[in-house]
């Protein structure tokens, strides 16, 4: 009985994690893929590892450290690239390595063994706590409300920022705020897929969706669906095969992308002939 209850909890946790991860990653992923911010998001992800390291060292929740680092680096890059004091890709490249360096130094300095380090790098559902799931759930609600309420404003600023400035004085506020939410989404999903793999959780589902549609909100919906399918399948496979969950999820998503792309290509060839 003990085992059953444990397994039941484990399955519920995994299911909720998959749902919330696919909602948050689908919404945030569509935004970063459409705005071509994938590299920036990679920078945010790896910079946040610095926060994880400091979190360990200072004895606070590493997710909080990662969130602070993630948001600060996101805003920093947006700000620097607007001011054009430095090339954006260079700024991201520096930030990327700097965050990792800080993380490694502080984890090294932390006395004792740091058991969860691998889970932050590669993700592990086993170490995902209830509060992590709740945080992802809250984030899902925030993102749905934010993108639902401000859909047109966000869409038009992303599409044509210069034009948006002709009618709105809120362009910068929206850009910075949305980027902060993206950073937070990435950090919360690090628990699921890990620093190294989380970016794929955001970028693969929109790319699956964009095989079918080029309409923004439809991309979001298809991203969430394909993301959930890939995450849940990967989760189940990893459970039965006893292999790391983050890597399995990403592997599954890529396989889905390849299959869908292949079928789509085949249909195109057949219908054209």
């Amino acid at each position: 009985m003990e085992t059953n209850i444990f397994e039941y909890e484990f399955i519920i946790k995994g299911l909720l994690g998959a749902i919330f991860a696919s909602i948050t990653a689908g919404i945030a992923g569509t935004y970063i893929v459409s705005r071509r911010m994938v590299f920036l998001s990679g920078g945010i992800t790896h910079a946040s590892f610095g926060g994880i390291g400091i979190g360990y060292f200072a004895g606070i929740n590493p997710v909080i450290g990662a969130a602070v680092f993630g948001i600060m680096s996101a805003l920093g890059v947006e700000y620097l690239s607007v001011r054009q004091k430095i090339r954006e890709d260079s700024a991201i490249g520096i930030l990327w390595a700097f965050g990792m360096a800080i993380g490694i130094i502080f984890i090294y300095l932390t006395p004792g063994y740091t058991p969860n380090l691998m889970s932050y790098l590669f993700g592990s559902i086993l170490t995902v706590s209830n509060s992590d799931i709740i945080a992802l759930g809250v984030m899902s609600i925030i993102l749905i409300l934010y993108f639902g309420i401000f859909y047109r404003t966000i869409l038009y600023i992303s599409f044509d920022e210069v034009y948006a400035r002709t009618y709105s004085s809120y362009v910068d506020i929206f850009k910075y705020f949305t980027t902060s939410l993206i950073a937070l989404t990435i950090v919360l999903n690090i628990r699921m897929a890990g620093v190294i793999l989380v970016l794929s959780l955001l970028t693969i589902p929109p790319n699956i969706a964009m095989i079918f549609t080029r309409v923004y909100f439809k991309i979001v919906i298809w991203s969430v669906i394909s993301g959930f399918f890939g995450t849940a399948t990967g989760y189940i496979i990893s459970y039965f095969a006893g292999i790391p969950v983050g890597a399995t999820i990403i592997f599954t998503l890529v396989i889905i992308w390849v299959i869908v792309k292949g079928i789509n290509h085949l249909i195109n060839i057949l219908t054209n002939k």
Partner: protein
Amino acid sequence: MATLFEMNALSASYGTNIILQDVSFRVMENDFIGVIGPNGGGKTTLLRVILGLLKPLNGTLVFNSDLIDNKSIGYLPQISTGDVNYPVTVTDIVLSGLMIRKGIITRMSSSDRQKADIVMDELGLSEMKNSPMNELSGGQMQRVFLGRAIIGDPRLLLLDEPGNFVDTTFENDFYEKLRELNKRMAILMVSHDVGTISAHIKSFACVNRTLHYHPSHEITNDDLLAYGCPIQLITHGVVPHTVLKMH
């Protein structure tokens, strides 16, 4: 004809770099003005000042508030500002021209969508109303952005280098469309391509730090004789010419 806006001794700069100096300029209803001049001469800056994106350093810009406010200006920027691979449909882009009258929290009503349908129909875009931008040709994209600029029924239409992304097959259509629009709005069209500017333009403003205004058909035979000979330019073919006064 009433005045839409008037600039008086206006100067504008980016930092310490003065781009426009002592510009006095008046735009009337139904004007169709070609703004010409070299690159970096201040043409786009002039549009930015009119749009309220750049505060003048000195001088004044006064709108005739009976006819126009800063929400009744339509703007067609250079194509480079929008990402054509962005997943957004033709209808969505045309609708975005209404954002100027809406808040940050907004839904497009069915009357907004009807308005977009009318504009797309007028510009020959109905067939591709649900298409993403990257399936369109250059000329079609330009009409989409023109649709965005005019959906709000502006009194003044600002066009920044429309020649940049017109493909020549659409060029005539496009300028013909502008002539029709000119019946209900004033048009200010920036172009560095002085050579092939539209014949529908009624007057010219030369911008190169200062602004020099040329009313239409100003060159008379007397002017030509002032050069010491009756002809300064010889071309072959049937291309019509507009010759502006020296300044």
